[in-house]
């Protein structure tokens, strides 16, 4: 007696047999299993079958197994009347893929690859255009010199009432004290503050938002920012010099 996908309605003598999961508890079986995709589809999309031979008791299990059968190369073997499936067999014993199927799969993979590359390209272009638009707005909000420096170095100097700030295009803000107080060197801090969901927006939008926030309410800006001190005196001096230089240029 053969278990076969084509005669599943009347051949097994067991009490309960899950169609498509590849084993039976009772009856004798040889391992001649033939599978056709449309029959697999039928089993997959047909819920419970009650009849003299076949009862699918766990629909989800059947679905999972049929899916594995269909998408991976699982094989079956028979031992003492019991059919078990072997994970990872390189070929399906009965229903080997035809040359056409292989070709179709290969062609589909190539189509998917081309399609995904096109999508990535499209997204990159949209991002680039968004950045251009954001920079156009920024250009209107800052002086020519500041914008030229921003274009070249990706850093925007914002002169606050109490401190100076350098907003970095790639993220983060450097805050530098205005002047020496009682011969104490100006302190330099690194601030972490940005637009919510900053990665949704072009980088220059983030710069615009921070610049406007400093201009409008410097205290609030400093309160919201997460500040950390720079530990290296050399780095601090570099930033002090940079801010002085930028102020001279502007």
């Amino acid at each position: 007696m053969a278990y076969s996908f084509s005669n599943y309605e009347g051949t097994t003598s067991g009490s309960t047999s899950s169609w498509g999961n590849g084993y039976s508890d009772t009856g004798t079986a040889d391992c001649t299993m033939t599978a056709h995709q449309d029959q697999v589809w039928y089993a997959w999309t047909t819920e419970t079958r009650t009849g003299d031979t076949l009862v699918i008791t766990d629909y989800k299990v059947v679905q999972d197994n049929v899916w594995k059968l269909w998408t991976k190369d699982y094989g079956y073997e028979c031992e003492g009347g019991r059919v078990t499936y072997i994970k990872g067999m390189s070929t399906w014993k009965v229903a080997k893929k035809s040359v056409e199927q292989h070709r179709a799969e290969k062609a589909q993979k190539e189509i998917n690859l081309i399609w995904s590359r096109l999508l990535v390209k499209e997204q990159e272009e949209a991002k680039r255009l968004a950045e251009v638009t954001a920079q156009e707005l920024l250009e209107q909000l800052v002086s020519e010199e500041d914008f030229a420096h921003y274009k070249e170095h990706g850093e925007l100097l914002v002169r606050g009432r109490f401190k100076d700030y350098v907003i970095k295009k790639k993220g983060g803000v450097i805050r530098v004290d205005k002047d020496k107080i009682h011969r104490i060197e100006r302190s330099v801090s690194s601030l972490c503050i940005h637009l919510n969901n900053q990665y949704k927006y072009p980088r220059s939008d983030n710069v615009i938002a921070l610049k406007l926030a400093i201009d409008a309410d410097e205290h609030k800006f400093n309160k919201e920012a997460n500040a950390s001190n720079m530990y290296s005196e050399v780095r601090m001096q570099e930033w002090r010099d940079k801010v002085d230089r930028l102020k001279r240029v502007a």
Partner: protein
Amino acid sequence: MGEMRILSPSGDNRIQWDPKNTDESEVAEMSFDKLKSKGYQAFEVQKDGKKGKLIKKFKSTLGMIVMVPAIAGG
């Protein structure tokens, strides 16, 4: 002519209105209120590097407004 620039993932979106045209001004005001209710901050800005000012209410006579989504400390 008034202009509202709304920061968005595509750079920014624009709404323009003629202060003398009440319909256009109303549309701009509705957009302003909607964005404010979403947590956007509104800045009245001057061109050429002059400082922006935070505004709470829409006025059709304002020149340029930039609507900025909420910012947060990292």
